[in-house]
């Protein structure tokens, strides 16, 4: 693929992203208002704009994490949700919430929640790898991820017994919700994305090399184990920071890389970049749907992504584009 063609694709996807962010500013609980001047500036600048940008950034982080997971484990079904890292992140958030004072909304709590989510995501993916005895069997890895997800969800449920006052907050995180994203959360996700994208692009040759098989990659002079560990770290960071702001959002990480696979021309760097952007588009688009399907009532965005992403996954399985190697 020529640089010119890649630039055009990037430009088109950025244009779609900007349109969706703008649409996010029109859509709200007060209905659709196409005239900006009639919208309360506080609602526009303090609620809708950070939510739109934040939802986009959370989707971008999940899209990137999905592309890393699929390349790293050479598994078309790998994503933060199915690998156990998203539920690990959620458990991290839950523990930090339990340890903090109820209702406290300080920057320290926000940073603590993000740190907890990162640690939880890392723990989740490492536990799934440990349980699967490595990453060589796709089926074992996915089953381990599901088992870890169930165990972590049970632990989260237990937290609501310890702190019943947090039931609603935890429930909101479990269903996936973008309505609580503020400027602080948006800035944190932007920082995480600015850190994760360049590191991943830098480490992407290892993903290309791995697609020829573990053994061939070993003979290419790359410090494979170190690079793989760094990529797992980036995967956990991206997942953790997205989950800490929005809760569990299923299938964005899985579907985003598949949506752009035919556009990337098989180049890992392009695939990673396009997956990031398509993740943002997917989540923000779903958020707009979540706000408008039953307006003025709003449903958690996680439900919309689960329905859309799950349907897409079934479609791919039906078309035979996804095979599972035992």
């Amino acid at each position, binding site marked *: 693929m020529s640089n010119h063609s890649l630039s055009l694709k990037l430009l088109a996807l950025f244009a779609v992203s900007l349109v969706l962010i703008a649409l996010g500013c029109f859509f709200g609980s007060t209905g659709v208002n196409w005239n900006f001047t009639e919208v309360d500036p506080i609602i526009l600048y303090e609620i809708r704009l950070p939510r739109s940008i934040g939802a986009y950034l959370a989707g971008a982080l999940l899209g990137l994490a999905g592309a890393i997971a*699929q390349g790293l484990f*050479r*598994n*078309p079904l790998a994503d933060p949700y199915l690998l156990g890292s998203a539920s690990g992140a959620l458990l991290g958030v839950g523990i930090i919430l339990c340890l903090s004072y109820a209702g406290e909304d300080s920057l320290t709590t926000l940073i603590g929640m993000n740190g907890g989510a990162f640690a939880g995501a890392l723990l989740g993916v490492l536990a799934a790898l440990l349980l699967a005895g490595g990453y060589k069997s796709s089926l074992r890895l996915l089953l381990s991820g599901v088992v870890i997800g169930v165990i972590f969800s049970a632990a989260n449920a237990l937290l609501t017994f310890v702190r019943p006052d947090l039931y609603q907050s935890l429930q909101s995180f479990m269903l996936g919700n973008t309505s609580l994203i503020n400027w602080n959360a948006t800035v944190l996700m932007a920082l995480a994305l600015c850190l994760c994208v360049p590191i991943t692009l*830098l480490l*992407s*040759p290892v993903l*290309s*090399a791995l*697609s*020829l*098989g573990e*053994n*061939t990659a*070993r*003979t*290419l*002079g*790359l*410090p494979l184990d170190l690079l793989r560990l760094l990529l797992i770290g980036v995967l956990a960071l991206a997942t953790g920071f997205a989950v800490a702001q929005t809760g569990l959002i299923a299938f964005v990480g899985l579907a985003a890389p598949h949506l752009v*696979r035919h556009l*990337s*021309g*098989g*180049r890992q760097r392009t*695939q990673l970049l396009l997956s990031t952007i398509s993740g943002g588009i997917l989540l923000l688009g779903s958020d707009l749907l979540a706000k408008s399907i039953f307006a003025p009532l709003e449903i958690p965005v996680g439900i919309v992504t689960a329905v859309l992403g799950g349907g897409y996954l079934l479609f791919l399985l039906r078309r035979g584009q996804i*095979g599972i*190697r035992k």
Partner: protein
Amino acid sequence: MKILDLKVYRGPCEVISNLTIDIPKGKWTSIVGPNGAGKSSLLQGIADILPITGSITINNVNLQDVDRKARAKTIAWLAQNNDAAEEFSELTVYDTVMLGRIPHQGWLHLPSSLDHEVVQESLFKTHTQSLASRFLHELSGGEKQRVLLARLLAVQADILLMDEPLANLDPPHQADWLIWQKELLAQGKTIVTVLHEIQYALKADHLVMIRQGKLHFEGASQDLATHEALVTLFEGRIRLEKLGNDWVCLPA
């Protein structure tokens, strides 16, 4: 390349035991043996894929003292086709061959004009230029094998290790492969192959026979003693006959 008291491990199992052989520089050495003898494991031990004890020295330098990148530039390895043909490979042929240039690239891994030149040359030599923009998973077994050979050539290593390079190649491309071998040898490359096709193995300069992880025999491929050892290696179930200038292997 001198291999001294080499042991290769696959998990807890010792698959190659106390092997001491000389791989002549600038020559073609072929490793043969029955299934499960440890031929591929030996190649993987040399390629730093499987853990080893003992020593492998090239020009009196122990390979274990050489850094990873320099080693990758010196020794290139071609996997058995079924190892490399990953189901979930989204690479194009051109990018697959470009992977061979990784040991030569800087930390940003941005291909230089020399990298592009070498890739084009490797594609040309293996008759795969017309496949350059195709995806690896779209190719037939034989086409894929030629692309993987091009990837091997793109490393421009002095020592080429090939594990069953003829697998999936049709007779004309097997003949092409022999021509490439001769070209590579003329360039001073050292070639080590694992081959099941005994008639091709007999075209090598040097034969190393492995049985149950141990050295059975080594010698020049045209020597009568080597031929006798080969028949013994396969428990008398093969015979070798001269056909023109070549030796062919037939069932006994």
